[in-house]
């Protein structure tokens, strides 16, 4: 068994050195497990992968990504920003707060951190600099604000966690609200503390009215998606489908920003993302079937029982592990591979699986801001035309803020669970 395990590790390291994509590494590792460890039929990988993708819940992922891309390409994001700016103008650091609120509103539609940064960043960055905010602060704030996209529901990582651990996605979405609000408050509070004196004139009622009129269709989108899910009127999939149709109608008929060619381009762009995500998802679920069949999670729980002597130790271990993993691999792959292994450990320590899902997402959110793999850092270098290391330095205080948020989310489970009618 030891030789086999060493061979498996060697295979993975060799494929990493040969710069293989995750899908190849995961596929080869799964095939290895089926062939050599359980002496089974490698064809089961195909059967399991097929069954994995043959699920209704997964339909929400392509539809949410498409809705976010449509809003980003169209005029909806701009109009959300206008409303936020008009409302936050006279507040200290009003424009910075408007940037955070815009990110949060957009996040309540897109489910993606990078799409949120790309939709809000290019509009808000020059506005913040022009209003007197230091460049480093503006870059850091927008990079951090963009990460709200993955914790504020609907969230693609939370859907992936729900699929991998058979946890209710609706409960996960509800649980994301508290931590999402906490992070918004932390970012807004830090902005006020740093730039108390930067504020606009008083409220301009005419501008507020005009902004709300022009942004009414955009403002209704989060209400439609989240209101539909939380009221029980729509499932997550139905809500995503309605969101796409709504976004297409608004952008083509009301805002008249997108034509047929644009729609085609947005769909193909979305398919490209799905072609990267879904094969990994399918193979990860296949590997998960193997691990479950071989009772690996149970063995892991038993093996670590002596080392982990309580929920506190487990939470510390999980956070350190995820912070390291988040620096190296993308959040989707990390959740797909680690969630099924961590869930039984968490349950054995009396931790709610919904809380674990939120904790994983908030923790891996930091991976967007940490070099060398921080996706929002890479995107920001191009979107804001700033040097990579300048951006890395700019996000440091915001990493500290998100870490503070992570500690609260980790050790105050009620923050995530208070809407679920069960105590943490």
């Amino acid at each position: 068994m030891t030789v086999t395990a060493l061979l498996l590790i060697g295979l993975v390291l060799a494929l990493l050195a040969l710069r293989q994509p995750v899908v190849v590494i995961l596929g080869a590792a799964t095939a290895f497990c089926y062939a050599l460890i359980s002496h089974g039929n490698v064809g089961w990988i195909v059967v399991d992968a097929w069954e994995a993708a043959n699920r209704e819940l997964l339909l929400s992922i392509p539809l949410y990504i498409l809705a976010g891309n449509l809003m980003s390409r169209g005029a909806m994001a701009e109009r959300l920003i206008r409303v936020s700016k008009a409302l936050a103008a006279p507040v200290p650091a009003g424009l910075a707060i408007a940037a955070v609120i815009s990110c949060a509103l957009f996040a309540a539609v897109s489910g993606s951190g990078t799409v949120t940064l790309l939709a809000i960043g290019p509009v808000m960055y020059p506005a913040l600099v022009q209003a007197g905010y230091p460049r480093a602060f503006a870059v850091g704030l927008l990079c951090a604000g963009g990460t709200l996209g993955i914790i504020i529901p609907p969230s693609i990582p939370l859907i992936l966690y729900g699929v991998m651990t058979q946890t209710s996605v609706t409960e996960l979405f509800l649980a994301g609200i508290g931590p999402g609000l906490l992070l918004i408050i932390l970012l807004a509070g830090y902005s006020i503390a740093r730039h108390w004196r930067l504020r606009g004139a008083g409220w301009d009622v005419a501008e507020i009215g005009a902004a709300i009129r022009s942004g009414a269709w955009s403002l209704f989108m989060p209400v439609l998606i989240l209101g539909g899910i939380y009221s029980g009127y729509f499932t997550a999939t139905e809500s995503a489908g309605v969101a796409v149709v709504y976004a297409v109608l608004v952008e083509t008929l009301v805002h008249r920003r997108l034509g047929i060619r644009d729609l085609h381009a947005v769909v193909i762009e979305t398919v490209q993302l799905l072609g990267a995500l879904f094969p990994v998802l399918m193979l990860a679920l296949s590997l998960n079937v193997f691990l479950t069949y071989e009772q690996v999670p149970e063995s892991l729980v038993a093996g670590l029982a002596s080392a982990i002597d309580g929920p506190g130790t487990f939470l510390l271990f999980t956070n350190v592990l995820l912070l390291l993993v988040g620096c190296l691999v993308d959040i989707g792959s990390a959740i797909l591979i680690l969630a099924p292994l961590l869930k039984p450990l968490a349950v054995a320590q009396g931790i709610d699986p919904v809380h674990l899902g939120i904790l994983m997402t908030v923790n891996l959110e930091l991976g967007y801001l940490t070099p060398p793999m921080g996706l929002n850092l890479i995107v920001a270098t191009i979107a804001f035309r700033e040097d990579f290391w300048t951006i890395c330095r700019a996000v440091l205080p915001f990493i500290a803020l998100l870490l503070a948020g992570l500690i609260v989310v980790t050790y105050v489970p009620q923050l995530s669970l208070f809407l679920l009618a069960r105590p943490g």
Partner: protein
Amino acid sequence: MRTAERLLKILSGLERLGAFLAFLVLIGVVFLDVASREVTGTGLHWAMQVGVYANLVVVLLGIGITSAAGAHLRPRFADGWLPRAWDGVLGRLQEGVTGLFFAAFAIVGALVVAETRELGERAPVLGNLVWPLQALIPAVSAAGAVRHLIYSAWPALRPRQPAASPANPEASGPS
């Protein structure tokens, strides 16, 4: 090389067309299901299964579209493990190994589909035979093998290996 380039172009065109049409079906059936529930009081019992199949077509064809854009998820922390001077050879090797993986997956997939066909397996809701749709797995895997082996043979045809960019923001992950 020109023939290979033309082949890749045709392949990409077919994948994009198929994925686009399947995505329209996916959006259509999910929305129709909700609309039908609102209008007639009952949803369409077949809608979600058709949506699932449409999604399968989208994501399976999407694998090729992602390959053509060089946008598969790839951990980059190990890129410096081997000397940079070997990049030329490594690029060919990288594509060759990916091509062989897809070729192996195509063969295994074909065997599974043959078995499903022999068993006459049918889907629970729609009652359709499963194998014709399942056959997409070996088909797209074979196409992936051809594509990556072409990239290995003619590296000039490889897509640029991007980090994430605004045009391709999710090259490292779609979340």
